């Protein structure tokens, strides 16, 4: 009985440990502002940020901007990720397709996609297309590169086994190649999600008339430091959320792999 209680407490401790450091930082931050060590004109206290959050949520402004940003992020991700995945598959499976496109992709990859912002504004203005284009471009490369690498690293002895047992090409792809490439594809997915938020925030901060980045820029104009900090914290939460979703997906899809089965 006590033993079971012990494992229960140890499990609770294990689950809470990752949050210890963020909690300490928040506490220290609140204390520093409360005791006047830091001027709240530059750094508002956590409680002020929370208050700003509640106010923005109540007025509906937060939800509209959050919704607009999320929609942009997902649409850009779907476009860029979809193209990257398809091209990665094509180049992983067909040497001819790879000879044709891979060199070009590698050249474009070395251009930081955010450096295209001035050009993109010239092309698309500050409309939705500009943001979608940048997010799609940023997400494309990690998904492409990791899908390609995943397919390349599929164990050739398993492919031979599949052929010996009479699998057709589509069966071979579905049962051997794709599952074998999946761990690497997930790595690409996680990188892609990170780049998705980063790109969107930069794009919205520079040129937008709605969205989280726009909200933060507006707040800066009016010296509303608490709203600026609120926006930054929301980015952190969104990034963490995307990562947690991918982890959950990995645990379901890669349950066979001992490296993912723990926890």
């Amino acid at each position, binding site marked *: 009985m006590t033993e079971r209680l012990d494992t229960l407490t140890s499990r609770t401790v294990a689950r809470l440990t990752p949050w210890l450091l963020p909690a300490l930082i928040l506490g220290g931050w609140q204390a520093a502002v409360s005791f006047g060590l830091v001027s709240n004109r530059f750094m508002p206290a956590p409680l002020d940020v929370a208050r700003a959050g509640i106010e923005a949520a109540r007025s509906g402004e937060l939800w509209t901007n959050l919704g607009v940003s999320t929609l942009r992020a997902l649409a850009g991700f779907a476009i860029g990720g979809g193209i990257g995945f398809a091209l990665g598959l094509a180049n992983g499976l067909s040497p001819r397709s790879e000879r044709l496109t891979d060199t070009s992709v590698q050249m474009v990859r070395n251009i930081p996609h955010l450096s295209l912002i001035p050009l993109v504004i010239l092309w698309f203005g500050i409309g939705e297309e500009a943001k979608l284009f940048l997010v799609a471009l940023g997400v494309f490369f990690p998904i492409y590169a990791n899908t390609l690498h995943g397919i390349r690293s599929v164990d050739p*002895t*398993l492919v*031979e*086994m*599949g052929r*010996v*047992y*009479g*699998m*057709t090409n589509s*069966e071979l792809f579905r*049962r*051997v190649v794709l*599952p*074998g490439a*999946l761990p690497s594809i997930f790595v690409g997915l996680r990188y892609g999600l990170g780049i998705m938020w980063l790109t969107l925030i930069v794009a919205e901060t520079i040129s937008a008339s709605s969205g989280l980045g726009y909200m933060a820029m507006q707040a800066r104009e009016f010296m509303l430091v608490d709203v600026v900090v609120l926006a930054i914290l929301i980015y952190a939460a969104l990034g963490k959320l995307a990562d947690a979703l991918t982890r959950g997906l990995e645990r379901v899809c*890669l*349950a*066979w*792999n*001992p490296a993912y089965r723990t926890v």
Partner: protein
Amino acid sequence: MLLDLTRPETATRRVEAVPPTAGLPPAAADRGIAVTVQGLAKRFGEASVLEGLDLYLPAGGFTAVVGRSGCGKSTLLRLILGLETPSAGRIRLDDAEAARRRARPRRIMFQEPRLLPWARVLDNVAVGLTGQGTRAERRARAAAALEEVGLSGKAGAWPATLSGGQRQRVALARALVSRPGLMALDEPLGALDALTRIGMQDLIERIWQAQRFTALLVTHDVGEAVALADRILVLDAGRVALDLKVDVPRPRRRGDPRLAALEGRILEYLLGGKAA
């Protein structure tokens, strides 16, 4: 035996579904595929691996091929399985009825189990029935094959959780589940520890006696060849250097002096004595 019971009872198959009686000479026409090899040669670029090899494997026989590394024994096996194309010569697979050849496939057991890590054990065995029947039928026959190798309890496990010997048993079940006419064994026990290996040898012998497929074992363990095969080919420089019959009745006792003498003779040849 068990596999026979789970086979779909179609009208054409009922005739041949009579299980072979243990102890009788192999019902060759019913079970195995005979293999005829004529003037077989294989070159990889400049290097010649096999030169003008002639060979006849009778249906239902158990033949072992031994030789030093690089003597071409694995290449011979891969050629017979159709995994490589010969540079010259012919390989003919004879079945009593040519039309039935598809129903009696060629199967191979590799040195590594080559299981799909993302498929559970039962589904890995069902890979052996790719393209046959419905999913439910495949799973039922796979379960029977798993029982035959003594792993029924592991049907739902991931391959990563099995021991090396268990994985190789799953690979054996996968090769057996389609009732092969020819089973090639490419050093399938090379990576196992000594005790597990002996257990696997007994299992392979027992299943071969029950199913009477034509077995072709490539190994560098002469003791294993002597224990399992009824004929041993020693390959040297791309040719059959020795062709020996193993006239020891089964079940064979480990440490039988006749087996030991034969093993000694082959080893002496391989180690350079050439006094065969």
